[in-house]
């Protein structure tokens, strides 16, 4: 049940995609393409640009944090009163691209401060489950 967070306190999805970073970058940054796989939007690949993602069930308020073409893209993701940060990382491989998406409830500065601290979150939820099991 707690599997999504075995590495960090965030949602991380990683996939090997058989297409080059440039092509994936277009799908991640061109509004008419974003709409096809994510939601309707007024995205622009410009730092500080504010945009919305819209669906029948509501809207997500976003702001671009970082843009490095074909390499990394991050934006805030505000929905249901909770602000998080979505970061895309594209790494070229011999067969295409390693695509990584991380959504974290911590701001990047908090993330960094934390990773600098001892231990980190690795296996955190595993440990937590163990302790909760002992409490039960």
């Amino acid at each position: 049940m707690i599997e999504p967070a075995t590495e960090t306190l965030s949602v991380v999805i990683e996939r090997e995609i058989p297409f080059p970073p440039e092509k994936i970058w277009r799908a991640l940054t061109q509004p008419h393409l974003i709409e096809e796989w994510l939601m309707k939007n007024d995205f622009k690949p410009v730092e500080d640009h504010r945009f919305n993602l819209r669906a029948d069930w509501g809207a997500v308020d976003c702001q671009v944090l970082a843009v490095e073409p074909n390499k990394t893209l991050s934006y805030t993701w505000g929905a249901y009163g909770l602000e998080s940060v979505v970061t895309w990382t594209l790494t070229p491989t011999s067969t295409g691209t390693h695509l990584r998406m991380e959504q974290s409830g911590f701001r990047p500065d908090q993330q960094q401060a934390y990773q600098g601290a001892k231990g980190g979150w690795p296996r955190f939820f595993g440990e937590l489950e163990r302790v909760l099991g002992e409490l039960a």
Partner: protein
Amino acid sequence: MKLSANSLFKALGDPTRRAIFEQLSRRGEQTVHVLTEFSGVSQPAVSKHLAALKIAGLVQLRREGRETHYRIRPDGIAPLVDWLTFYSAFWHERFDRLEDLLKRMDQ
């Protein structure tokens, strides 16, 4: 989705507080005294962090003599787990759609 995930992330936004919480999750119940030694900050600072964790519903306390013992509150972490579970499913589905789109873009 519950609003309370927001207060959990806020409560855990501070690195020292997060370290204290992690320590409780690893070691089980601890006294304020032990947590102060572990964290390397003053006892008033530790107490302040623990109070914030308590308000967020992440920890509960038990007094015994002059010592106050803190431990993780199992229900407290639930909104965070809900958040992670929800977005994990959401993004897996969107990745599938993204891959479909990339195939179509080729044609």
